[in-house]
Structure formats: C-alpha cells, structure tokens
C-alpha cells in the first residue's frame, strides 16, 4: 500500500472535523476549504513524524496552525467578521436543510430547530478565536480536555479555565441575543 493510500485511509475520515474547525477559526467558507487542503498536504508531508495512535488531534493541530497563519496573513481589520456574511445562505444551500450537518438530523436538532441553532452559532461566532476553538473542539468534536490541550498546545488547566470563560461569555451574549429578540418580538 502506498503511503498516500495509508494516509488517505487514516486522515480523510476526519475531513469533516478538519473543515469544521477551519471554518470556525476563519469564518469564511472558501478560506476554510483552502486551509483544509493546505493542512492535509502538510499533514501528508509530515506523516512520517506521526507517532501513531489517534490521528484526529494530530490532524486538527495542523489545521489549527494553518488557520492561524491564514488569520495572521489576512488580518483584515478587526477580528470581527461580518456575521451576515458568514451566515448568509450560499448558492446550493437548501433552505432549512442547510443547517443540518449530518444527513440524518438527530431528534434533538429537530426539536431545537433552525432558529435556535442560528442563535447559538451567532453567539459563538462573536467570541474571540481562542474561545471559539475550545468550544468547537469540546462541544462539536467532543474531545477530552487532554486532547484539546494537545491540539492547542496549552496545559489542561488552561483548557479548563478557557472553556469556563468561553461558556460564561457565550451565556452573556446568548442572553443578550435572546433579550433582543424578545424586544423585537414585542
């Protein structure tokens, strides 16, 4: 088996996770695609240094590095990106379906509905990248603190406190968002 085949078999199942992290770091769909491609090429080149075990944290660490390099190069003004742009429906996005990542929506997703999802993701998008990435890795990728620490290159204690602060921030923003909507509704 060629090294490429081995690499593809190990790494391609995590394409979804890689894309999700890249997207949440740069919040631009075209950039996220470029980052994922770049990261996979780099990962393949460095595949010889991979020590075995679970490839996902190793791969996500590379994606994260590429994404941060991308961000520092891009550096277009403030780090706050237009939410409208990030959340505007794109060509090919089917209304309603667009919000559901998996082909079969979970019962929870159906219950919460598209509006709720949009609200929590808008709140997430407003957080600084350092908070966004720990939340994405914890809540969406469901990684352990140790794995997250490995990916972002910090001690586990930092992951713990950062997640705590990120959730606090999210709670504040989510609350204000809810209030705004209630006011609008009135």
């Amino acid at each position, binding site marked *: 088996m*060629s*090294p*490429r085949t081995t*690499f*593809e078999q190990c790494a*391609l199942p995590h*394409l*979804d*996770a890689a*894309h*999700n992290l890249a*997207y*949440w770091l740069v919040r631009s*769909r075209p950039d*996220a*695609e470029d980052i*994922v*491609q770049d990261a*996979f*090429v780099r990962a*393949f*080149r460095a*595949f*010889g240094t991979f020590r075995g075990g679970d490839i996902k944290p190793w791969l996500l660490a590379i994606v994260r590095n590429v994404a941060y390099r991308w961000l520092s190069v891009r550096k277009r003004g403030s780090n706050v990106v237009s939410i409208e742009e990030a959340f505007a429906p794109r060509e090919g*996005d089917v209304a309603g379906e*667009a*919000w*559901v*990542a*998996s082909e079969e929506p*979970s019962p*929870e*997703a159906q219950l*919460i509905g598209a509006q*709720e*999802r949009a609200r*929590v*993701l808008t709140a*997430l998008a407003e957080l600084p990248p350092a908070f966004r990435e720990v*939340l994405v890795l*914890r*809540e*969406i990728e*469901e990684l*352990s*603190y140790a794995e997250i620490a490995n990916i972002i290159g910090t001690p586990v204690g930092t992951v*713990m*406190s950062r*997640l*705590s602060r990120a*959730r*606090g921030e*999210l*709670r504040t923003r*989510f609350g204000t968002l809810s209030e705004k909507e209630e006011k609008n509704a009135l």
Partner: protein
Amino acid sequence: MRCDEAQQLISAGIDGELSRTNAEELREHTQACASCAGVAADFRRLSQQLKSAGREILPARLESRVRLALTEMAADAPSAGVRRKPWVRQLAALAAVFLIAVFGTWTVTRQVDSEARLQQDVLSAHVRSLLQESPIQVASGDPHSVKPWFNGRIEYAPEVKDPATEGFPLAGARLDYIGGKRVAALVYKRRLHVVNVFVWPAPSAEDTAPRLISNKGYNLLTWNHGGLTYWAVSDLNGAELQQLKAFL
C-alpha cells in the same frame, strides 16, 4: 465551597473533567446555591445547543480537491519529500564531477610541481656548491669527524661513510638549503668529479628503489633508506653514481 470557586468548576463539571472530590463539593454547592445552579443549567443548555448544532456542512467537492492535491504531491515526491527532483540530482552529479576533476588536477600538478621544484633545488644547490671556493664547510675524510659536525646543526644524524678504497673518497660536508629546509650535504670525490649527496628525513619510513634522473647534463640519483631521503648529484655518469649508492 464559595460561589466564585464553584463558578470556576461548573464548566469542567458538566464536561465530567473534575476529580471525584471536586465534583462532589460542586454538587453539594449547587444544591444549596440557586445562582450557581442557574449558571450550571445555562451552561448545560448551551452545551446541548452547540452539540446539536453540529458541524459546518462539508462541501462535497472538498474531498475530491484534497485527494487531487495529495495525488499531485505524491507524484512529485513518492516517498513524501525524500526523493529529490531530477534536476537537483543532475546538478549534484555535475558538481561532483567538476569537484573531482578540479581536485584531481590540483593533486597531480601539485605532486609534479613539488617533485620538479625539489629536483631543481637539488641541482641548484649542487651547482652553487661548485661555484663557491669550496663545496665543504668541514673538510675531513674521516666519517667520525664529519658525523658529529652535524650535531646541533640539523635534527637528524645522516650516515657518513668513507668509501675511499672504492674510489669515492669523502671530502667533507656542509649544510645546504633545499625545499625550505636545512639539509645535510656530504661531498665525495670521484677522480675530478664532485658528488654532492643531500640527506634529509623522508616523509615515510619506506625504502624506495633508486631513481636516476638526467637534468642539464647532470645526473641525479634519489632513493629513500632508513627513513632518510638521499639525493646524489654529479656530472658523473649514472652507472658510477649508482656504484656510490651501493657503498653508502
């Protein structure tokens, strides 16, 4: 547990990343404290919402894009970057050939050069000795006076013999300067001919067979023996010069 302590642990608590003791204390606190219990409930709800929000939709074309990029890269570097590009190898080969050629030429010319220069030095020293009033600094036919004369003048002790009975009487010795070094010069006579025998330490201890060289009508005979290099120079014919070598 105080509220500020509890609030730092709530997040890790819902992730199940707390130690058993911390988790127990936190549970006790939130049972008693409505405010902290509220935070914990909010965190749990947000966590649920994010979890069910799921990943960003993976564009269908991304997988084929990545596969294509990997295939292209693998075609460029089958062993993940170890194999070099062909032009790099060609350039390396060319550079190697060039270096070998330059080094080879340099070594050969240097050897030829130093050999020729030494021969010239030896011959010049011989001719110079004849131009002077006397080719000898210490005139003696006795090897036991000549040999000690070198003590303190040079750092080695050349073998001095007097083959007078063979028709090569020892006339004496002097110091000369050859190849940037002070060397011993032994002077022998053969009828009216003067033979200079220069002696200095050889670069290697190996004995070498005598080699006869003719230069400007002079004959030069050189050999290594006992860790010393000998150069015998004279206008004497080569055969007789070789005879002298046999007596030394």
